[in-house]
């Protein structure tokens, strides 16, 4: 699998399979996930409920709950397979090479400490000592858009708005200059205007620091605004990968097309929205072959019996489908 851009590869996830043991049986959460992220790019990971996008991020960080098991796969970051790394090394990678920002900034911010003490803790825990702490932290806060870092450093999290908290969370995530920043629904809890500001900020982070960002979201509009490339996930599989423009203007997988068609802006008032029939399958007993086949109007015998692999279709676009859109066969 080659990436679309000539940029060197940063993260290479191959054949990742993940299950959860639950009261009701085994949940097949991820099924042969292949994902590649290049340097200095914002990669979107988009999907609906149950697609497995958040769980993919947790797998990269190796912070799965007790009942999750990675059955097979490789997660290679700069030549090192994270799944084969020992706990101590992983701890040094988390926060330093790979950092995370979540949907709810209060998950990262402790309400009883000032921002200053939290950022200090963050840097100390990763580097052992805080050289030129004040200068570094002020610059970080300025980088994320605060014209007056002093005021923020002295504040407690509850004194800041949601957008500001998320910016602080971003500053903390960036404090050790990670190579990869994972942002899991970073703007879902924020207002539209603040959301646009955070997206612009993420782009600036990519440009000025060269950090790659894995942006996980269910919002196609955010992907359109923010991402260089995008991977579409459905029921634990990646079904399509490509540059954002390619995927949005000419989607090759029927699920991607269905999603794009279902957006209200595609249809005029009074007309019915095109709808993907059926519903998201249960991951306890997923459909055989291509997991989308029960809902796909173009499914054939082979779709039911064999799972399609993610393969190049056009330059720079990969799709997992036996009858991709635009295929004359």
């Amino acid at each position, binding site marked *: 699998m080659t990436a679309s851009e000539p940029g060197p590869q940063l993260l290479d996830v191959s054949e990742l399979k993940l299950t959860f043991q639950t009261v009701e049986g085994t949940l097949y959460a991820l099924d042969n996930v292949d994902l590649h992220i290049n340097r200095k790019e914002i990669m979107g990971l988009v999907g609906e409920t149950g697609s497995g996008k958040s769980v993919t991020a947790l797998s990269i960080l190796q912070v799965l709950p007790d009942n999750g098991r990675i059955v097979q796969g490789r997660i290679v970051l700069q030549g090192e397979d994270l799944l084969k790394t020992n706990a101590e090394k992983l701890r040094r990678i988390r926060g330093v090479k790979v950092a995370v920002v979540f949907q709810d900034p209060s998950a990262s911010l402790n309400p009883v400490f000032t921002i200053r003490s939290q950022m200090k803790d963050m840097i100390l825990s990763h580097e052992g000592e805080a050289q030129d702490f004040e200068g570094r932290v002020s610059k970080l806060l300025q980088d994320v858009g605060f014209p007056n870092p002093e005021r923020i450093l002295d504040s407690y999290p509850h004194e800041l708005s949601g957008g500001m908290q998320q910016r602080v969370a971003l500053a903390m995530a960036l404090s050790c200059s990670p190579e990869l920043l994972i942002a899991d629904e970073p703007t879902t809890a924020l*207002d*539209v*205007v603040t959301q646009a500001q955070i997206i612009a900020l993420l782009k*600036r982070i990519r440009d000025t620091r060269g950090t790659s960002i894995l942006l996980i979201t269910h919002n196609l509009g955010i992907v359109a605004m923010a991402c260089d490339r995008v991977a579409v996930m459905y029921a634990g599989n990646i079904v399509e990968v490509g540059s954002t423009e390619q995927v949005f203007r000419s989607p090759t997988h029927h699920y991607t097309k269905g999603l794009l068609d279902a957006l209200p802006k595609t249809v005029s008032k009074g007309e*019915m929205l095109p709808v993907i029939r059926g519903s998201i399958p249960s991951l306890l007993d997923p459909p055989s072959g291509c997991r989308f086949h029960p809902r796909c109007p173009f499914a054939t015998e082979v779709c039911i019996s064999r799972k399609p692999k993610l393969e190049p279709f056009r330059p720079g676009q990969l799709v997992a489908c036996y009858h991709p859109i635009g295929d004359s066969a």
Partner: protein
Amino acid sequence: MTPLLEVTELRKHFTLRSGLFRKVGIVKAVDGVSFSIDAQQTYGLAGETGCGKSTVAKCVLRIMEPTSGEVKIEGRNIHAIKGNELKQTRRNIQAIFQNPFMSLDPRMTAASLIAEPLRTHRVLPKQKVSDRVLELMRTVGLDEEHASKYPHELSGGQNQRVAVARALALSPKLVVLDEPTSSLDVSVQAQILNLFTEIQKREGLSYLFISHDLSVLRYLTDVLSIMYLGRIVETGPSEEVFKNPSHPYTQLLLASVPEFTLTEAGFKVEVPDRIEAAGVPPENGCKFYPRCPYRMEKCKTNDPPLYKIGEKHLAACFLHENEPFAFYQEANN
């Protein structure tokens, strides 16, 4: 013709108290909102968190008492009536809320939830109730097997359908929809939006559609009002508001909404990525003053009224001062 719903100068102020008695401040959640909805019309109320749109909904539904102002349904002031008369009036105006997992009692089955309005108002004899419940379920696209399921056994989309069936049970004339699809997946949202359109045609309903999602509002609404900090800052036929946004806040909103940057030529408003000085809105001036790229001196000390941009299109901004001055009431004739 009497409009179906008429809201006049609605105000809801919350008093902040420290301790039990000391008054510390007032939050003006809704500060002078007026609008009306006609029969079979879809009226949209847009804005971000804190603009007051949900508070307006609660006052219209009478689950909150306004500080001042009037809400009239078919000409009757709903805050002036009580008891049985109020109960009867409630049949005309129902609601669907944002998160069906929270707006449906987790301990009731779909069937009992849908039957509840029928039983409360005793519209049908006992034997006929379950038939009507099944009929309603079919209308919203649910199967008979869903009747005995609890909310946690159904998906978000299915639960929202239960909520719709429940709202339709009393054959209301107006349905208030408070962010009804915000918690749903894109593909499910499409199904539910189609359901809303279908039902509106079939039952001849009016909708008060409250949302922060501008693309949904553009698709569904006839008339759209934009709210900011408790006031309506722009209102008009939705196509006009989208084609010609006349209030700086509306322009900022449209520029920020991801959907629009994909296909539209784009508005010129730059969304800054630095945080603007937060700024407290001036006491007597325009509430948008601290964030407005076009602000003038007079905006600090005077509160702009709604000026007429088009036949029914109004915006509260001094930029449009030279257009014919119009108070809201006048524009609505």
